[in-house]
């Protein structure tokens, strides 16, 4: 058996049993990345020497009988998450060469858990995008069809996990940036409730919407990684201080009596027929497993897109004001300080500039009430939709995205059409819900289709178990993409 084919849990168990070593697993992953990632471009920065050192250390600790949750397991981290001493760019030229002086909370947690960090994965610039085409460095290719996008913004992490170039990965999800690429790449991606995971050390895009999430090849892998990054952190004032939960223990696969809501507003014109058919079949499967299917309504769904595209850019315009070339990133000098700042900020790519412009306008005097203020009120209606729905049901099931992975270049010139790719995911970020995407079929082009399961505030255990039940009854997660080999010259 090829060691890179093991799941995260299988590798963890094999390491604990002494059946293999972290060094062997890490070296095998690195070899595989060298062989295949020239064609996929899932990594921006492979930290192979650090990873092998961490693997050797893990092997010593394993030999000493230490039992840590991820001891010796190689994991990838989205390049918007700060890693001490390792370049972190957020996919932007404005942070080229930036070496963070500290680890993000989630990276501290990975290290405490004994994980080996393989490297940093590609992302749309500042996580703004749905395809990784907005990365200032490279476009990641979908492992199932390299002429297509992997989704985004955490497309590098999703592609790496799908292609067996990492046993698991971290991403961030502001409007769907974990779930949509998970759907496009045929892996499991979890977006926890806002506040469940600390944002300390995560480069901010939209602070009221950003959340770190996890990718795994199956539900148990995704859960094991999620377990490690939870916990209260007083350095993020929005981090929730909630009791410890053992998420792996709740994966029983029992969904008898679980009430699953199907919102009529998510089955609309524009959704690909094969996507709708696969999702409806998946819902039937949940019913077969004992779940009770309930038709529900989330009446303000159609307003989520405009609300999101006012709130997220407004917050982004404030967060990205800090990039002035003074403390980090290149400084492009001009005649005076304001001209220097303006010249330096020309290092932003088209999408961040577009969102900074939009956000600045929505927040500017005279337009604040008409745009940003109105969006905040409409957000309340969207949030209340979910609140009412979760009085009736335990889980909401929908497609993750209206389509499967689209061709590279197909939407780059039309931002509105690109934004529609997240139409089913972004309501959740505006509300206080959690959600995940898991594979529920393939279309006639052989591209993965994702089922989104949404849970109420802090009800990750409920959606993870529902996903686990579905996964046990199907075998979509066992399929692997056939990768094109590329030159091993790096």
């Amino acid at each position, binding site marked *: 058996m090829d060691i890179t084919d093991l799941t995260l849990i299988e590798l963890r168990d094999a390491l604990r049993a002494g059946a293999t070593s972290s060094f062997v697993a890490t070296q095998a992953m690195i070899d595989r990345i060298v062989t295949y990632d020239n064609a996929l471009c899932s990594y921006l920065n492979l930290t192979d020497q650090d990873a092998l050192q961490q693997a050797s250390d893990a092997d010593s600790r394993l030999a000493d009988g230490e039992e840590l949750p991820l001891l010796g397991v190689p994991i990838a981290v989205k390049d918007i998450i700060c890693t001490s001493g390792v370049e972190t760019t957020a996919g932007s030229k404005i942070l080229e*060469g930036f*070496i963070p*002086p*500290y680890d993000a909370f989630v990276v501290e947690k990975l290290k405490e858990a004994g994980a080996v960090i393989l490297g940093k994965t590609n992302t749309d610039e500042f996580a703004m995008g749905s395809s990784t085409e907005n990365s200032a460095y490279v476009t990641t290719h979908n492992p199932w069809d390299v002429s297509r996008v992997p989704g985004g913004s955490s497309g590098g992490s999703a592609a790496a996990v799908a292609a067996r170039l990492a046993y698991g990965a971290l991403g961030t999800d502001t409007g769907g940036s974990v779930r949509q690429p998970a759907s496009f790449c045929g892996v499991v991606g979890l977006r926890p*409730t*806002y*506040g469940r995971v600390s944002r300390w050390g995560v480069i901010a895009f939209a602070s*009221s*919407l950003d959340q770190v999430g996890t990718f795994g090849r199956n539900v148990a892998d995704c859960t094991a990684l999620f377990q490690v990054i939870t916990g209260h952190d*007083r350095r993020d*004032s*929005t981090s*929730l201080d909630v009791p410890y939960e053992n998420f792996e223990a709740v994966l029983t696969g029992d969904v008898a009596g679980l009430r699953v809501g199907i919102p009529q507003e998510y089955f609309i014109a524009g959704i690909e027929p094969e996507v709708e058919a696969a999702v409806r079949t998946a819902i039937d499967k949940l019913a077969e497993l004992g779940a009770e299917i309930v038709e529900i309504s989330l009446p*303000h769904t*159609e*307003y989520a*897109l*405009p609300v999101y*595209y*006012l709130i997220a850019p407004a917050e982004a*315009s404030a967060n990205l*004001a800090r990039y*002035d070339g*003074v*403390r*980090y990133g290149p*400084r492009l*000098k001009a005649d005076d*300080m304001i001209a*220097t*700042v*303006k*010249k330096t*900020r*020309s290092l*932003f790519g088209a999408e961040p*500039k*577009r969102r*900074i*412009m*939009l956000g*600045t*306008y929505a927040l*500017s005097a005279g337009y604040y009430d008409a*745009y940003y203020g*109105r*969006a*905040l*009120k*409409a*957000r*309340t*209606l969207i*949030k209340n939709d979910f609140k009412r729905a979760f009085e009736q049901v335990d889980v909401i099931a929908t497609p993750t995205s209206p389509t499967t992975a689209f061709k590279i270049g197909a939407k780059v010139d039309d*931002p*509105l059409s690109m934004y529609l790719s997240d139409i089913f995911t972004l309501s959740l970020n*505006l*509300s*206080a819900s959690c959600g995940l995407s898991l594979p529920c079929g393939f279309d006639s082009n052989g591209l993965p289709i994702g089922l989104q399961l949404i849970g109420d*505030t802090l009800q990750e255990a409920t959606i993870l178990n529902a996903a686990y039940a579905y996964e046990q009854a199907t075998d979509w997660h066992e399929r692997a993409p056939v990768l094109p080999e590329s030159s091993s010259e790096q």
Partner: protein
Amino acid sequence: MELTRQQVEQIAHLARLDLSAEEITLYQNQLSAILDAADRLTELDLDGVLPTARAVPMQNVMRPDRVEPSLPLEDVLYNTDHQASDQFVIQAILDD
């Protein structure tokens, strides 16, 4: 909502972005289209609806008022070439 060229230039100045003539034209068109889509929100009756700024409401999150070690200066200054006397150097913004 059709933005004028002057409006786009003014937004760019507020956002400290140096845009080319082509970029101004591009954003004039794209922002107008996005704002048109956003105008759908005027259909909603929002009288008496309170705004939601955060998904999970929290109030008065405090930390102990205690002095703790800061990052080492060399780490903080590591990411710039423009430094002197343990400080970031910028161009003068005030006259003598």
